[in-house]
């Protein structure tokens, strides 16, 4: 019989939530997660949050915490977790692969379901985490998806990562040097992007993936959240939404008036972006409340 994991709990009476930190999953390689629950009442539904990676994991961490707390205060359980090789979870970042991240997400879904009694938690992903969430959801028919500024093509994502790293060096007055991300990975096996390494296994296991390929065939409700900036990105997202609707998906798109660029820390537009993040959290919770919640038995 599987025993419940030991948890370290924090109660927030003002928000009406309790937060349970725990290690769960495979005994050989444990995952760390924080489950946010409504205080003193059952959850009406649940969401598993797939975090961003690399430097975006740092700049979006607070967003995920805000979201999880707000969801729980509205009666929706929310599980945040760290992929193996990141944060407090076991494993080595050098061996991270896309498939492993998908497995971790499925383990997180199983854990959230077991702890809350909610069958079929929804999946939310930010940026690269959105690609992972979509891939995991493909194995869970009808699981709703909520995707924040989703990576539509992994190839484009890694190009952006490289560009972001180069722009930081340009800002510092340093010529970035030749080679490109793929070239450096081929040569060294790892590339530093703004202080976060991208290792070859993650790159090679991800590079050809696209959101529309990963989501699979099973139609489901989906929320796409996007901050307007580059027209090409907005057009690509609109095209993805159109394609999913043609496949029978119930697609909602929420657009925000400022681009969500999370590559950098402490830049001049940080406060602007965070204002829109507060709105992003609010609109996401509203969507979850209307699309996911089901009446709780008396």
């Amino acid at each position: 019989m599987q025993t419940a994991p030991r948890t370290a709990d924090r109660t927030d009476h003002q928000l009406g939530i309790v937060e349970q930190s725990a290690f769960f999953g495979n005994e050989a390689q444990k995952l760390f997660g924080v489950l946010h629950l409504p205080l003193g009442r059952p959850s009406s539904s649940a969401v598993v949050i797939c975090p961003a990676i690399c430097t975006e994991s740092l700049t979006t961490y607070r967003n995920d915490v805000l979201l999880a707390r707000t969801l729980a205060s509205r009666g929706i359980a929310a599980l945040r977790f760290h992929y193996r090789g990141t944060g407090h979870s076991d494993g080595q970042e050098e061996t991270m692969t896309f498939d492993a991240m998908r497995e971790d997400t499925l383990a997180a879904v199983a854990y959230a379901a077991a702890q809350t009694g909610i069958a079929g938690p929804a999946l939310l992903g930010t940026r690269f985490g959105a690609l992972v969430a979509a891939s995991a959801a493909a194995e869970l028919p009808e699981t709703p998806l909520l995707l924040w500024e989703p990576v539509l093509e992994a190839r484009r994502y890694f190009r952006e990562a490289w560009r972001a790293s180069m722009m930081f060096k340009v800002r510092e007055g340093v010529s970035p040097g030749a080679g490109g991300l793929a070239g450096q990975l081929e040569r060294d096996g790892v590339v530093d992007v703004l202080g976060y390494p991208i290792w070859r296994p993650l790159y090679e296991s991800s590079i050809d993936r696209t959101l529309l390929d990963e989501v699979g065939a099973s139609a489901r409700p989906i929320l796409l959240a996007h901050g307007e900036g580059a027209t090409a990105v907005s057009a690509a997202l609109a095209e993805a939404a159109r394609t999913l609707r043609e496949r029978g998906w119930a697609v909602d798109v929420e657009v925000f008036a400022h681009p969500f660029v999370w590559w950098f820390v402490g830049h001049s537009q940080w406060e602007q972006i965070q204002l829109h993040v507060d709105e992003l959290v609010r609109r996401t919770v509203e969507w979850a409340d209307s699309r996911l919640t089901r009446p709780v038995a008396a």
Partner: protein
Amino acid sequence: MSTERTARIRDFIVDELRWDGPREQLTEDYPLISSGVIDSLGLFRIVGFLEEEYGIEIPDDELLPENFETLGAIAKLAER
């Protein structure tokens, strides 16, 4: 060098990057990076803007400090 292109880039810096100094301060040779007008995020967004606005792709080996230090340098980069 196209003054229209320079003006368009200036507009982007003022309107999209929210430069709140006087527009006329952003002359063609005003030092944008060393004076703090644009930071890493600004540079990142400028590159995206140039590629989209002018239908070009800026090769990685052109992403050099000297190509972004002034409005004039950025406009020249976009014309290559």
